[in-house]
């Protein structure tokens, strides 16, 4: 294996139907019109010397190193800023060019420390390469003149160092921050010789920098360099793999020294990210080798006992015998399991297989239950498939973007950057969100309409938007006639045209002025390609599924499904939420979203698995917990999930876990759920196994093993061991064989194989005979269900109401630097940006309670109480408070209730009636947490390391 070197064409290769042919150094080459001479040369293998150019950025033309000669033109134009033209004859190497380039390099090197042998970029420095390329042998200017060799070094960022003495002021970092990331945190300060890169007059950590790493990647020298590279040196080989954080699913090169990870570098060939990254995927991988990792299996009789390290045989044997004992005592349905959206498709498939085939029931669920299960229900009911309609690149062709209940610059940062880029190109944005998220107004982008609705009124708002479309004659009648169920449309149109759905009526519910709603609806319907992107602000409501259907109605009514630039796109929370759903993790569905009652689908698996399968739905997570409290559900196998922190109404969750007789947790860490466990099976990180993840755009991407599992086994192997011990042996030597089984049994994956993934890089399902290379855009000629079905979406207020006791509404979410329950990111330097969860509260609500910024406040609901610090923010609307759930010790879900979506039981995280008051102590729950954080996590009797 070697380091993967990606071709840098210097400037982007344009996408244009017209090709132009030119001659470079005597060879003919043809490129799309608009492509630069530099990039044209690169496509034929000729690297024109360059410093300020890199193909993730537009041409800049400042370094004067890429000069070429062109027949018929005077002078020596820069090849990066000169478009290739038909018939052009170019020479990239002449004595004159060599002389000019040496002169340029001589000037650069005259103000650059010549410490190459000890420099962190030694062997990976474009300045060094260019000095070699132009044959620089001497610098005539001496060392006595003005220079920047004493310029300061900024080590404030935990992940990279800014050594400005090595800066050549090529502006690649500044441009990367603008063009790729869209944050505009960097600038060039000063003029002429005094020009220096600056993070806005402060240090990097204190600046607006979001640590995406784009500047570090763009830097051609050691000026911006990863601390891990400074510490460890250059990697010797690299492997392409897929990020294990959010649902964007970025492709990375894991750059390695042996089995040690040196750095993660985003891959240009990753179609989800196209060379970009965020602070989590790029830098926050230290958790994988954190000292808190549990690497030995452990068991205990009671949860109050200390854990005891045991052999794999003993731990697996205990889990299997307990599960069988429970089934013999309480019935076959008394146990179940949870698959993980953080594990691979193959692992998820095996867990549901274990439960259906070895447990003998359908009690399998996944964390998608508590995030995007309404997406599956709503899109399936209207369009016929449980997934988003577009690829991410499609947003580049959107003219109007309706963003509902999502905060992509925090939750899905790499997609957020794509979105901002399109907005800078002129697309128009409508944001529907109770909070003023960053995209409402940030550098060079802004929302044309911010529909700051009250939490819980999504359906009323979407109905009002559709009301305007229908009553103002903005419906795409031809599209509906051709593509949709006309009876359903007519019934829906009558419903939606009713005055109760008019913006003027719903204004009382949503709080959004009718005129703003009407203007937004007109923009969505008439502004060109209109695309909807949404997140958990849509789904995590008692009407989550209804909202998804209301969005589908709006998109169908305006003809905005079935081509590039439009569609309905869920932004999935975790890396493999889509995949875990695809793999049959829901208790009513087999892989490929086929209901368990369907004889034909069931028979496929029964034949292959050699066992009869149940035809009735099993229990969902909340149902399992309810039945546990009722004394009927007694054992659970939890792979890579932490319901004790992530699921709502924590005290109900832990009551359920406490009532069980055997809780088996398979995870990297002793998480919150493990406090209630009897068997702990040490899991493996995404770096320690092969497999695939499926992202929010249905893209199946390879996960590749770069180091040995710390526990000795990958998660799929642990599931196999458990299945063996339960008397249902599974035989797979490699995850590719599991994928072969998935392909053989699941029509939408029929054409997927590891060989094809190796060849294509990634594949968007459906992938079958009809679409052998996958399907970037769904529903192109017809909807998957045949005719698109409009659903009637009556607004029904949630039962969760404010009142005298709980007058405020709490809504929860996430921030950029932390991820989900924080088990990974809290064990990285990311916590320097977000060391604790805080309560965002509007100044009016704070003032009326005597709360000042930083005060400790008690947050109370009918479910429970916690204490946390207040952060006064006018991003909130009066009457609404907000917090995150990243820190277990905060216990945000102690506050949330057991109310849930009518169709899927997805919890209503986004609407909880609360009160806020000043306090000076932790809540009773928190005091108990601190005590149990010690008492329920003790480990005794460590096995000898040699065992």
């Amino acid at each position, binding site marked *: 294996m070697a380091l993967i070197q990606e071709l840098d064409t210097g400037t982007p290769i344009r996408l244009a139907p017209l090709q132009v042919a030119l001659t470079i150094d005597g060879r003919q080459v043809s490129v799309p019109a608009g492509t630069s001479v530099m990039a044209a040369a690169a496509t034929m293998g000729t690297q024109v010397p360059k410093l300020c150019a890199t193909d993730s950025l537009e041409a800049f033309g400042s370094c004067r190193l890429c000069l070429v000669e062109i027949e018929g033109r005077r002078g020596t134009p820069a090849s990066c800023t000169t478009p290739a033209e038909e018939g052009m004859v170019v020479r990239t190497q002449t004595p004159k060019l060599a002389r000019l380039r040496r002169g340029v390099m001589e000037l650069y090197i005259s103000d650059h420390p010549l410490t190459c042998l000890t420099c962190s970029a030694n062997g990976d420095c474009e300045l060094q390469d260019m000095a070699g390329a132009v044959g620089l042998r001497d610098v005539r200017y001496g060392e006595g003149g003005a220079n920047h060799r004493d310029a300061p070094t900024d080590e404030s960022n935990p992940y990279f160092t800014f050594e400005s003495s090595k800066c050549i002021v090529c502006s690649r970092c500044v441009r990367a921050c603008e063009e790729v990331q869209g944050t505009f945190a960097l600038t060039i300060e000063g003029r002429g010789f005094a020009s220096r890169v600056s993070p806005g007059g402060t240090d990097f950590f204190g600046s607006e920098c979001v640590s995406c790493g784009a500047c570090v990647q763009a830097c051609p020298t050691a000026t911006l360099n990863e601390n891990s590279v400074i510490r460890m040196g250059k990697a010797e080989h690299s492997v392409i793999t897929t990020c294990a954080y959010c649902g964007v699913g970025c492709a990375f090169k894991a750059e390695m020294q042996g089995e040690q990870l040196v750095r993660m570098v985003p891959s240009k060939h990753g179609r989800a990210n196209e060379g970009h990254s965020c602070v989590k995927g790029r830098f926050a991988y230290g958790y994988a080798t954190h000292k808190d990792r549990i690497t030995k299996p452990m068991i205990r009789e009671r949860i109050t006992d200390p854990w005891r390290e045991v052999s794999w045989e003993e731990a697996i044997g205990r889990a299997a015998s307990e599960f069988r004992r429970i089934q013999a005592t309480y019935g*076959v349905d*008394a146990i179940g399991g949870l698959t993980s959206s953080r594990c691979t498709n193959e692992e998820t498939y095996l867990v549901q297989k274990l439960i259906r085939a070895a447990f003998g029931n359908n009690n399998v669920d996944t964390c998608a239950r508590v995030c995007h299960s309404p997406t599956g229900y709503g899109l399936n009911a209207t369009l016929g498939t449980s997934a988003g309609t577009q690829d991410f690149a499609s947003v580049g062709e959107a003219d109007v973007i309706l963003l509902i209940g999502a905060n992509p610059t925090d939750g899905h940062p790499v997609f957020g950057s794509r979105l901002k880029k399109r907005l800078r190109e002129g697309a128009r944005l409508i944001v529907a969100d109770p909070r003023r998220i960053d995209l409402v107004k940030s550098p060079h982008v802004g929302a044309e309409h911010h529909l700051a609705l009250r939490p819980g009124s999504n359906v009323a708002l979407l109905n009002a938007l559709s009301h305007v479309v229908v009553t103002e004659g903005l419906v795409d009648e031809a599209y509906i006639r051709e593509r949709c169920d006309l009876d359903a449309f007519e019934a829906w149109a009558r*419903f939606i045209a009713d005055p109760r759905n008019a913006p003027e009526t719903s204004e009382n519910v949503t709080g959004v002025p009718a005129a703003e709603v009407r203007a937004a609806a007109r923009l969505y319907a008439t502004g060109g390609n209109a695309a909807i992107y949404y997140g958990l602000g849509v789904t995590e409501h008692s009407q989550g599924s209804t909202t998804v259907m209301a969005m589908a109605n709006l998109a169908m009514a305006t003809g905005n499904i079935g081509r590039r630039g439009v569609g309905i796109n869920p932004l999935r929370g975790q890396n493999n939420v889509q995949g875990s759903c695809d793999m049959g993790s829901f208790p009513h569905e087999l892989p490929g979203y086929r209901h368990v009652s369907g004889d034909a689908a069931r028979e496929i698996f029964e034949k292959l698995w050699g066992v009869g399968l*149940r035809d009735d*739905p099993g229990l969902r997570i909340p149902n399992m917990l*309810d039945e546990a409290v009722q004394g009927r559900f007694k054992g659970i196998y939890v792979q890579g999930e932490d319901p004790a922190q992530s699921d709502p109404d924590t005290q109900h969750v832990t009551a359920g876990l406490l009532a069980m007789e055997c809780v088996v947790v398979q995870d990297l860490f002793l998480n919150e759920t493990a406090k209630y466990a009897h068997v702990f099976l040490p899991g493996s990180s995404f770096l320690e196994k092969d497999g695939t993840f499926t992202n929010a755009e249905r893209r199946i991407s390879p996960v590749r093993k770069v180091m040995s599992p710390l526990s000795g086994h990958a998660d799929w192997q642990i599931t196999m061991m458990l299945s063996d011990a339960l008397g249902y042996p599974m035989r797979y030597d490699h995850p590719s064989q599991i994928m072969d089984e998935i392909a053989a049994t699941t029509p939408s994956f029929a054409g997927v194989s590891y060989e094809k993934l190796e060849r294509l890089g990634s594949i968007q399902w459906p992938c079958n005979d009809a679409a052998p290379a996958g399907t970037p855009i769904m529903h192109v000629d017809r909807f998957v269900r045949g005719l698109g079905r409009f659903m*009637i*979406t*009556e607004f029904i207020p949630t039962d969760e109401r404010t009142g005298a006791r709980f007058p405020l509404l709490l809504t929860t979410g996430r921030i950029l630097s932390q991820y989900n329950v924080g088990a990974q990111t809290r064990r990285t330097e990311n916590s320097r940006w977000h060391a604790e969860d805080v309560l965002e509260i509007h100044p009016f609500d704070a003032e009326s309670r005597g709360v000042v910024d930083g005060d400790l406040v008690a947050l109370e609901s009918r479910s429970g109480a916690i204490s946390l610090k207040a952060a006064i923010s006018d991003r909130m609307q009066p009457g609404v408070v907000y917090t995150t759930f990243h820190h277990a010790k905060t216990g945000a879900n102690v506050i949330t209730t057991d109310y849930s979506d*009518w169709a899927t039981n997805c919890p209503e995280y986004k609407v909880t009636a609360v009160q806020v008051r000043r306090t000076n102590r932790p809540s009773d729950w928190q005091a108990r947490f601190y005590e149990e954080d010690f008492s329920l996590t003790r480990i005794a009797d460590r096995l000898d390391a040699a065992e």
Partner: protein
Amino acid sequence: MTDAAPKLARMANQIAAFFRSYPEEEAVKGVHGHIKSFWSPRMRLDLAARLDDPDLPVDPLVRAAFAMDPELGTPRLPASTR
């Protein structure tokens, strides 16, 4: 042991509230189909056992769904299920 029925009734009533927008026959079928597709047999049994309880607020559409198909409330459970 807590009583499962009140929560199940609330869930069923939420389902009924969605389907109420449709003509009654379609609404009853909708409620029936949803419960049959997504609820475990035990959950259906637990609610069915309490449908006659006057203290349990159950939407008429839910009652109609169970009345339409007696098997909805009397599912076959595996022999070993307690």
